[in-house]
Every structure is written in C-alpha cells, then in structure tokens.
C-alpha cells in the first residue's frame, strides 16, 4: 500500500471526497441547465442550484489542497464483516418490503443480522426475538395507532 501512494504522499480519502464533491457539483449544475422555466424578474429555480454547485466546486478543490497537506484524520481499522452483516440485513429489508414480503419478516431479518454483525452468535434466537418484536410493533401500530405497516401474507392473518 505504501509504495502505491508514494507520489507526494497525497491523502487518498481526501482526494476521493474532492472528486465526489466535483461529481455532485456537476450533477447539480447539469440538472439546473436542463430547466426550461425561468422567472421574468427576481431569480428563477436555477440560480440557487448554480450557487450551490459553485460552492461544491470550491469545497472539492479545497479537499485537493487538504489532500496534499494534512489530509483527513486517519481512521481506525474497520471490521468489514460486521458492516456487511448489517448492510445485508438492510438490503434484505428493502427487498422484502419491495416484493411484498411484509413488515414482520423484514424486521426479524434486520434484528438478527444486526445482532450478528455486532458479535452475537445466536442467529436463530435473535431471529425469533426480532420476529416477536416485529409482530408486536405491527399490532400496536395497526390496532392502537390505526396505521397499517407494509403487509405481506403473514400480516394479513392478523388484520
């Protein structure tokens, strides 16, 4: 790793943030340039986006400067596996809601995956806890607050 970043010791994270900021600025600027309606007097819907885009460009360039100076604070080493477990749980949740799998199963998965990511090794027990938690929340929202959370086949049994 060290011999890769040897050129002038540029701080990689700061460079990446700088590039990302420029990309966002370009998106904002492009979107504003596509607007068709403009106000006859005062400023239209495009003025502020252009100002924001300009601000983002300045910040992006400032990050390049920082990259060659002090750089961003050096973070601690991250536990990638833990992050993957939690992210996996959330992705499952989104898929489950999108495909009509219902709230309770989605919540059970999020609970179990997060607990696994945080270092517990009792996936089935946690899934059951999550399931009960999801069921209770669903019923409280449905009966007490009259708000129906996303329902799948399982939830319809209780309605």
């Amino acid at each position: 790793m060290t011999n890769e970043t040897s050129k002038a010791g540029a701080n990689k994270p700061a460079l990446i943030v700088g590039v990302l900021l420029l990309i966002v600025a370009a998106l904002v600027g492009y979107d504003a340039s596509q607007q068709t309606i403009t106000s006859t007097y005062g400023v239209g819907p495009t003025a502020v986006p252009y100002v924001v885009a300009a601000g983002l460009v300045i910040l992006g360039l400032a990050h390049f400067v920082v990259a060659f100076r002090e750089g961003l604070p050096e973070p601690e080493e991250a536990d990638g596996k833990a992050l993957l477990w939690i992210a996996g749980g959330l992705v499952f949740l989104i898929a489950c809601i999108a495909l009509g799998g219902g709230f309770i199963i989605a919540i059970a998965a999020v609970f179990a995956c997060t607990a696994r990511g945080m270092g517990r090794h009792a996936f089935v027990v946690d899934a059951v806890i999550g399931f009960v938690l999801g069921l209770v929340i669903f019923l409280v929202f449905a009966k007490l607050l009259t708000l129906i959370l996303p329902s799948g086949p399982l939830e319809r049994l209780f309605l």
Partner: protein
Amino acid sequence: MDTLLSLFHGFGVALEPSKMLFCLIGVFLGTAVGVLPGIGPALTVALLLPVTFKLDPAGSLIMFAGIYYGGMYGGSTTAILLNAPGESASLATALEGSKMAKAGRGGPALATSAIGSFVAGLIATIGLAFLAPWLVEIAVKFGPWDYFALMIVAFVTVSATFGDSPLRGLTSLFLGITLGLVGIDKLTGQARLTFGVPELLNGVEVTTLAVGLFAVGEAFYVASKRFRDPEEIIPIKGSLWMNKQDWKRSWAPWLRGTAFGFPIGALPAGGAEVPTFLSYSTEKRLCKYPDEFGKGAIEGVAGPEAANNASAAGTLVPLLTLGLPTSATAAIMLAGFQQYGLNPGPLLFAEKPDLVWGLIASLFIANVMLVILNLPLIGLWVRLLAIPQPWLYAGILVFSTMGTLAVNGSPVELAQLFLFGFVGYLMRRYDYPVAPMVVGLILGPMAEQQLRRALQISLGDPMILLENPGSATLLGIAFLALVAPFLMKGLNRFKASED
C-alpha cells in the same frame, strides 16, 4: 402582563389530564431512549417522532417537549455512569461526572445533574416565556432579506462550531443544502434533481436523513470498531442523595451555568458546547477545592449540566419565534412541527397561541415530572444501560426502519435511509460533523425561498440585501464567523511554529 396571561392560559391547556399523560409518556420514553449509550437527544427525538405521528398537534408537541427534556436527562446519566457522552454538549458533564461515579459518588452526581437541570430548565423556560413575545414583535417587522441573512448566519455558525474543521463542517452543510434542492420547486413547480424518480418529487424527508445519519450511521460505526473500547458501567455505590455540602457546593454553579446557557443558546449562533465548557472552566476557576477538579468535583457536574439544559430552552427561542433551528435537536424538532403542518415563527404565536403557550407551559411540567420520575427510577435507568450491545443496536435499527415505514412505506424511502446511514458512517469515520447536513436540508429551501422573495420585491436587485441595515449587519456577522476560524487557524499555526 400579557405574557403572564398567555402563560396562564397555556397552563390551562397543558394541565388537562390527557395532555399531562402525553407529557408523562414523553418524559418516560425520552429518558428510556436517551439513557441508551450512544444515543443523544437529537437521535432520541428523531427516533420517537413517528410515535407522536397520529396524535393531535397540541398533544404530540407536548409529548415532544417531554421527550426532549427526557432525552437530555438520559444523556447525562449515560455520560456520568458510562463516561460515554451521547453528544458533545454532555462532554463536560462526563469529565467530572464519571470521576465522581468511579469514586462511589455516582448518586450525588446524578442528583445534582437532575436538580441542576430542573433549576436551569425552570429559569430558562421563564426566560423563554418573557423573551419570546418580545422577539416576535421584532420578527414581525422582518423582511425576507432579514430572514435570508439570519439563515446565512445560522448556516455559517452551525458548520463552523460543530466539529474541528470548518472545511468538513461546510462540506457537510453544502451536501445538506444540495439534498434540500431535490424535489418540486415551490415557486415554479419545476422538478429539480429528481432524475425521473417520482418518489423524489416531494423532496428528501428530514426525518429520513436524520435517522439515517444519526441512528443507522452510528450503528455501522459502532459495529465497525466493536473490538475496541468496551464500555463499562460504573455501579452506583453509597447514598443516592446529596449531602449538605453537596447542596452548598451545587447551587451557585447551577445559577452560573444557567446564566451561561440560556443567552448563548438563544443566539442564532447558539449551540450547547460553548456554554457547557465555559461553565466548566469557570467553576474550575472559582472552586474552593481546585485540587478536586479532575478527581470528581461536584461543581464540574452541576455547572455544565445546568448550562446544557438552559441552552436547550434557549434554542427554543429562535426556533419558536423565527423558525430557526440552531442545534441538531432543534432541527429535528422543526421537522416535527412541519410534520403537523405548523411553521414556527411570529405567525404561529398569532395564529395558534394555545399551542405555543401550551408547549411552553408543558416545558415547566416536563421539568417537574423529570425530577419526580428520575430520582426514584434511577435504578431502572441504570439497568437499561446493561442491555447487551448487539440487541441494543439491533433494536435501534428496528425502530429506525419502523419510523421510516410508518411515515412513508416505499422502498425508495428505505433505500434513502440505508444510503444516508452509510454516508453517516463514512462521515463519522473521517470526522465530518453530521448535524450541519440536517440543518442544511431544513434551512436550505427556506433560505432559497426568502432570497427569491426578497429579489422579487427588489425586481432582481441583489443590493437589497446590503441596503437594509438589519440584513447587512447579519451578513457582516456571518462573514466574520466564516473567516474567523481560518484566521484563528493561521494564528495557531504561527504559535505552533514559534514553539
């Protein structure tokens, strides 16, 4: 006289049994969630926002007030017993508080922070009740240019005071403003930055961003470094109560802390970090037992804790009278107001006096309930601290997704939550403050609207911003606040090279 009458009327609203019940539930839930490690008041309010979703506005705002104060109190409990401040405002409390707890005086530390919060909250709420109507009278005369300038001041101070680096603060702020552009432009009906996704036409939900950045981001962050710094609860030994000397040493710091907290909190540049640290250093200087500082001096808990609470009531002044949030918690409270279709500002005092004064009165009641509830229930809160971390964060994620699904159940909304969570993780990892992003999302569209209104009145002449003395002064302040940290940094470097 008018103020007293309105306040009296407000108590009439807040003392209804059903409202009292909401307030009690709010205080209880707020403390229970706020006491969990890693959860500050901002996150507490964001997580519990959906719970108040279906109540009537008055009831839910009153519950809100309870959640707010409960969350603050819970946060200081964690700071004292775990030495894990949930937000920067309780950093000062943790300094002496955790030392006291280690020395077996956790009980008096918690008691002085509870009673100090009570005293400070009470005085500051009186200050709020008397200052607000006066400020409303000024605010009524504000033109759009003044509002715009005021928001610029808030932008600058929020991004410069949170975190160590103004560059990272401003980056966070600008990303928030960018998110604020998403959706239909209110004046022309044009869709901006939606990229053809219909769910984005309504813009980015503040609660989704806040919960994503604060809750999901925090979960990712803690998980990523879970092998480090295991947190240890310090058991409470000895008496829970303060002895005579504790009282004698606490009352003056309470009052001084309030005197720091309320005015600074009420400024548009506010925030709670500055007054808490000011109070800490003042008490350290004035203390008759300076040796005890660093080993657990009760003054070091009493002062900052009072300052923290007083500044919380202080931030409600610009929030209620101008609609201007100056802290992350206030920003989320504003989102809560907007959820019920209420826009805080001078008009709210005229249109919904019942609601505003009911809220102010319920702040008094929430304060009383906190003391009654918390001193005897300390044992229960301590037990909550012992929830295993995996279950704790699994539960936090469940509540986060539940909140998002309750407000808007679309997969697009959930995907945003996930995305913001990951962004929040990266921001924590590289030490970018997240609060300015939330403030940017809320204030960005408001500032744009005021600017365009101002320029419509002036027929497009931007000089209107500098011709009005009010807005010109405010813009001057904003400019100074923006430039000062960079100059100071230059000074520091100069100093460092001298050494």
